[in-house]
């Protein structure tokens, strides 16, 4: 724990953030007009039936009471039953967490594969063909809406070439991975633009730093300098960029999950807000928040592992 530079303080700091997130999402969703009863009743809506449902769901209690009930159930790990799916929310979450998690993981892996060589080489051969090519590709990539990229990828690699499945999630881990290749590429393109840019910038920074000059003056080869001294120093700040942008990556999955019909958390959340499925909204908010926070802690750990200066609080 301490070796990883984690402290209880760091973890304890997450609690108010989690609390804040649940509170804000709780209040926000209840401020919005619309009514779960409407959704549940559909065609069968009558004012009396709606009132009866609201009563039975506890929606006529004060918002504070409702929040209290939610908190109590969240602590015990039960999130109630979905209005829409008539299933325990926990169960729904279990189904939905996997695809999102895997999608983000595959995307992150892809991003690393794309950004690491591109960013570093673009910086080393600054102004070279690779640098320019990367720039142009990513300037365009950044300005394209992800869903359009997704559709084009499906058309080309799914339908025309038949290399990858056209949407869906498949059965079994291998199939899941196979199904997630195209969506992950779609997400990775805009996300990599950021990583490549910052990796390139940080590599240039490192290349220009004094210690690289000193290392080179030891008479060791350029590749050695790159591998031993440049890489790790260049990656460390990018780990932070990665963490900072993670929430936006998760946001991006909503659209991609839709395009590729992946049963993930993002689409569940949007759907749940639309149907005023409060228990689902609450639970998804909480789980997403925990997820993002954990990954942030993880990027922190990685940053600390990469950068010994952060391992211990330095006071000088």
């Amino acid at each position: 724990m301490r070796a990883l530079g984690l402290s209880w303080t760091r973890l304890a700091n997450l609690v108010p953030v989690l609390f804040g997130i649940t509170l804000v999402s709780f209040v926000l969703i209840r401020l919005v007009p619309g009514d779960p009863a409407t959704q549940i009743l559909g065609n069968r809506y009558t004012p009396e039936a709606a009132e009866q449902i609201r009563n039975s769901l506890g929606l006529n209690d004060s918002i504070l009471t409702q929040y209290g009930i939610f908190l109590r159930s969240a602590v015990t790990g039960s999130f109630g039953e979905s209005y829409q799916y008539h299933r325990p929310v926990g169960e729904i979450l279990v189904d939905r967490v996997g695809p999102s998690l895997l999608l983000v993981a595959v995307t992150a892996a892809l991003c690393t594969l794309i950004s690491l060589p591109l960013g570093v080489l673009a910086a080393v051969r600054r102004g070279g063909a690779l640098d320019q090519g990367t720039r142009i590709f990513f300037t365009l990539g950044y300005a394209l809406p992800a869903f359009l990229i997704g559709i084009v990828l499906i058309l080309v690699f799914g339908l025309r070439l038949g290399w990858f499945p056209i949407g869906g999630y498949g059965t079994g881990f291998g199939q899941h991975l196979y199904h997630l290749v195209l969506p992950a590429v779609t997400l990775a393109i805009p996300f990599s633009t950021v990583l490549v840019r910052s990796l390139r910038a940080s590599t240039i920074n490192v290349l220009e730093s004094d210690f690289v000059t000193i290392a080179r003056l030891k008479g060791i080869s350029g590749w050695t300098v790159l591998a031993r001294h440049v890489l790790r120093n260049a990656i460390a700040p990018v780990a932070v960029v990665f963490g900072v942008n993670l929430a936006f990556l998760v946001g991006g999955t909503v659209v991609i999950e839709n395009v590729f019909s992946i049963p993930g958390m993002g689409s569940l959340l949007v759907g749940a807000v639309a149907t005023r499925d409060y228990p689902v909204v609450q639970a998804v908010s909480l789980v997403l928040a925990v997820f993002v926070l954990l990954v942030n802690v993880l990027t922190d750990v990685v940053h600390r592992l990469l950068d010994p200066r952060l391992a211990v609080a330095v006071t000088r």
Partner: protein
Amino acid sequence: GGGGSSTTAPEASAPAATSEVDTLKIANGVAIDTLDPAENAANESIWLDQNIYARLVQTDPTGTKIVPDLASTWEQSADGLTWTFHLNPAAKFADGSPVTAADAAWSINRARALEGGWGFLITPVTSITATDPQTVVIKLKTKHAPLLADLAMYAYGILPQKAVEADKDFFSKTPYGAGPFKVTKLEPDSQLVLTRNDSYWGPKPKISTVEVSVVTNDNTRVLQLQGGQVDVIENPPGNLVKQLSANPKLKVDLFPSTRVDFLQVPLKSKPFEDVRVRQAVKAALDLDAMNTLAYQGNAVPANTFFPYKMLHWAESIPTPKPDLDKAKQLLTEAGFPNGFKTDLITVSGDAAGQAQAVVIKDDLAKIGIDVTIQSYEQSTAYTNERSGTNGLGLRYWTNDIIDPDEVATFGADIKGGANSFSSYWGDEATSKAINDARSETDEAKRGELYAQVQQTIADQAPFIPLAYAPFRYASGAWVNGFQVSPLGNYNDSLLSLTVGTH
């Protein structure tokens, strides 16, 4: 009793060609909400229910009459208040145990007792009891014409009481009933696998497995079909119908439905409380253009608020044609020679509705009414529309039973609970006519009553029916015999359907 008994057992089907491929893959656009028939709300899930659970009686594939299911015969008492159903002794649940009257009574009572459930349809029922293992008796306090239609509903699917009571997660694991298929895999958000029920007492399906996947994006579904990844998809985008039909490997089927699109009118607000204004709006609308742009001409312009070709649908009522002069004149009479401004509430993401809205905006502009299109997601949209004060709105209705009682009560009976589709329009005569029709067992007399109701709504225009939209399915040419009933069910066709290689 009159008309109450139908005697034939299901016809034994000829030993037709077996299916080359024994799996059918269907892609639906909507996730499964639950497979508990009493709680289902999503149509796609309801249509799946029908394959899993048998009911006492069922609707025939044409959607026009009731035929036996678990109950092979039934009779009603002379006063029409006691109904006795005799179960088919061969009926077994998928686990091999027999279907008993106790199971049936318990299942129907369970569904009827559920809050927010379907009990309201059969409020005249006072008790449902199993008098012996093969006999179910239903007692009514008043005569109730739609009773059989109600019992044919998915909600009254018969469940294995012991299994359901023993496992509170019964419906989220691998639920089964006495239908031709049982669930062997359920991932509500992505996949459902139905496997042939070998204990099924009726004719066996030719395919052994149905894989239903959830693919929410319309384009992705079409692409999956084009890529041969699935065999049948629901709701291909309307604009692709022509293109898909041109592909010899694919086909597009349009099945008549009970869907009625209508324009909600806010009667509680200023200009629309005047019937002349409503008539003017109605006269200005070009239903044909709407059909062209929203449904590529595949729908039928609506003449009444009853679903197309439903029992007692008043075919004779003329479909409104645009008459701008009349519309302007009506507006002038009502005191709005220069029109007025109003909102039109639509559901975002509903492509057909958005298209209809664009046409309505255009049509009404011609008589000086300036429409602003507002779109909300469904829950907000309906909440806004329901107050009757927030501008025009686009909504639709689908029937759950083949009897017109449901739509009549919701749409035209101010006392029916739904405020006449939330228009807050009502008149005594119409309410009475609907009530009478419910307990009237003479279908001819009911027909007259319903014709009167439909005419009144057409004249009063508390809302304006726009289109009868069909169910759209696309499938590979290798699929033979996929059929959908007007209520949306395809369970009958799965019994005989075959899948070829492709």
